[in-house]
């Protein structure tokens, strides 16, 4: 699969791209560490170490050069995406297990960098949420109100995992309201009254999502991603959430809330834009992004899991080769149906 001409490309190496993706994640990470808790920095370190160890082991088993592939940074990007999508106080072994699974199974068993049909970070998320649903649903609703030492103890399993550290996420609260139906609570009231909701989405989390948006726009400005996937993702999410919101504002949250909740922003700019597991043709990217946004909304609102972005991206990864095949642009000089 090739993108259409012109092939005027800057000579960018994989490690340069990966470094810039990491830099683009920084605003989101800073907001995360500041508003939710510095535990995320520990998780990033755990995930990075696990990713590099697993990568090194697999390179050794496959007889590939270590230095070249270890320094390309792709494992670190996968690790960071895993750490950022897992609950901040997930036990260390859960983050490490997810990362090792992503690198060993989702990346190297399929042929390594550039060969994986599925986004490794999202495979890790899906595997862990299917295997350990309780641990993966422990999201602190507001910022972690405990000292860093205590956060560390919880991650390392030295302190008991108190129930208090996990509340219902904003998405969960809305889902419960939806299940209660007409007799239940009014969403607008819920948003106004409950402590876990901030200005326009989950308190604290909304600014983390805004940080991802900022980093994503920078990636687009640097021409590392095209506008197609994020615009289609966000457009589809806004369309379906807006339609349902206008239809029954008492039961469904506004598009703004959905955009800044859960993994929508990081998904639109950092996960669905993965050049390996996503589509390559411009029209294909639009279909891919719109499909992921639509599925993410359906799964997060009507499904049983806390968020739908991971499953939406994986399902669209499955469709990507077919979409690419059907959206090949006509060869220059040929009629449309060549």
């Amino acid at each position, binding site marked *: 699969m090739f993108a259409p001409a012109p092939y005027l490309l800057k000579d960018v190496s994989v490690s340069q791209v990966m470094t810039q993706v990491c830099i683009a994640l920084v605003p989101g990470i800073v907001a995360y560490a500041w508003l939710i808790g510095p535990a995320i920095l520990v998780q990033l370190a755990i995930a990075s170490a696990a990713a590099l160890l697993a990568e090194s082991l697999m390179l050794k088993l496959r007889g590939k050069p270590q230095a070249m592939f270890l320094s390309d940074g792709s494992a670190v990007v996968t690790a960071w995406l895993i750490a950022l999508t897992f609950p901040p106080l997930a036990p260390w072994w859960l983050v490490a297990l997810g990362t090792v699974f992503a690198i060993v199974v989702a990346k190297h068993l399929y042929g390594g960098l550039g060969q994986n049909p599925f986004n490794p970070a999202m495979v890790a998320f899906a595997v862990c949420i*299917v*295997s350990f649903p309780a*641990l993966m649903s422990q999201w602190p609703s507001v910022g972690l109100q405990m000292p860093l030492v205590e956060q560390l103890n919880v991650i390392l399993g030295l302190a008991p995992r108190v129930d208090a550290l996990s509340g219902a996420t904003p998405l969960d609260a809305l889902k419960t309201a939806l299940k209660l139906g007409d007799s239940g609570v009014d969403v607008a009231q819920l948003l106004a009254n409950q402590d876990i909701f901030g200005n326009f989405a989950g308190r604290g989390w909304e600014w983390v999502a805004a940080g991802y948006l900022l980093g994503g726009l920078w990636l687009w400005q640097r021409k590392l991603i095209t506008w197609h996937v994020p615009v289609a993702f966000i457009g589809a999410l806004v369309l379906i959430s807006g339609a349902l919101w206008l239809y029954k504002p008492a039961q469904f949250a506004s598009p703004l809330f959905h955009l800044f909740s859960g993994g929508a922003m990081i998904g639109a700019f950092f996960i669905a834009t993965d050049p390996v597991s996503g589509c390559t043709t411009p029209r294909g990217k639009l279909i891919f992004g719109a499909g992921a946004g639509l599925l993410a909304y359906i799964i997060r609102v009507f499904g049983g899991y806390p968020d739908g972005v991971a499953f939406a991206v994986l399902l669209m990864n499955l469709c990507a080769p077919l979409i690419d095949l059907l959206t090949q642009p006509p060869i220059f000089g040929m009629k449309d149906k060549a």
Partner: protein
Amino acid sequence: MITRDEFRTIAHNGVWKQNTSIVQILGLCPLLAVTTNAVNGIMLSLATILVMALSNVAVASLRNFIPHEIRIPVFILIVAALVTVVDLLFNANLHELYLVLGIFIPLIVTNCIVLARVEAFAAKNPPLQSTFDGVFMGVGMLWTLALLGGMRELLGSGTLFGGIDMVFPSLQPIQLLPESYPGFLLALLPPGAFILLGCMIAWKNWMDARAAARAQRKPPASVATAGAH
């Protein structure tokens, strides 16, 4: 009757070279659904061994009387009758396990391994060889299902031989990992079976490749003379 070499070839084919689960990849439905622990895998394999041995010997004995054109319906009728016998035997003697294995015992009749061996082997060979073929094909299935079930059980819940009390009431499952083991649920779900089966197939191919490389290295003298011409 049967030569030593013939017997060894049949045994080797069934247990390793043409292993039903990791070489022929037949009968994936029971493989995925039943191997959530080693005991289920072993007991279903034992039922399949029984059916395969009996159906192979029955078909091999009747092979000269079955019209070629309608052989498949006749084979299926024979297999179905034998499966019904095994199904009733399980229901009567191992009722609890029968409830666990459920539909998969009657479904042995649709298991492609049984019909494949009847068609490929028993319809062309004498009864004694056919019996051994059925048994050893079943043994091949037995060890792969037991291994797969054991691995899934160990990863998924940290125990080994869970449910053994349904077969031998005096025995208890072995708790290999500490009680606090959280359980890797994926291993117990169908995707876990696919992933582990893939690993087992890779392991089998790796063993074969290693054996082939070793066999090639062993007689260097003849290779050297062949190359000299």
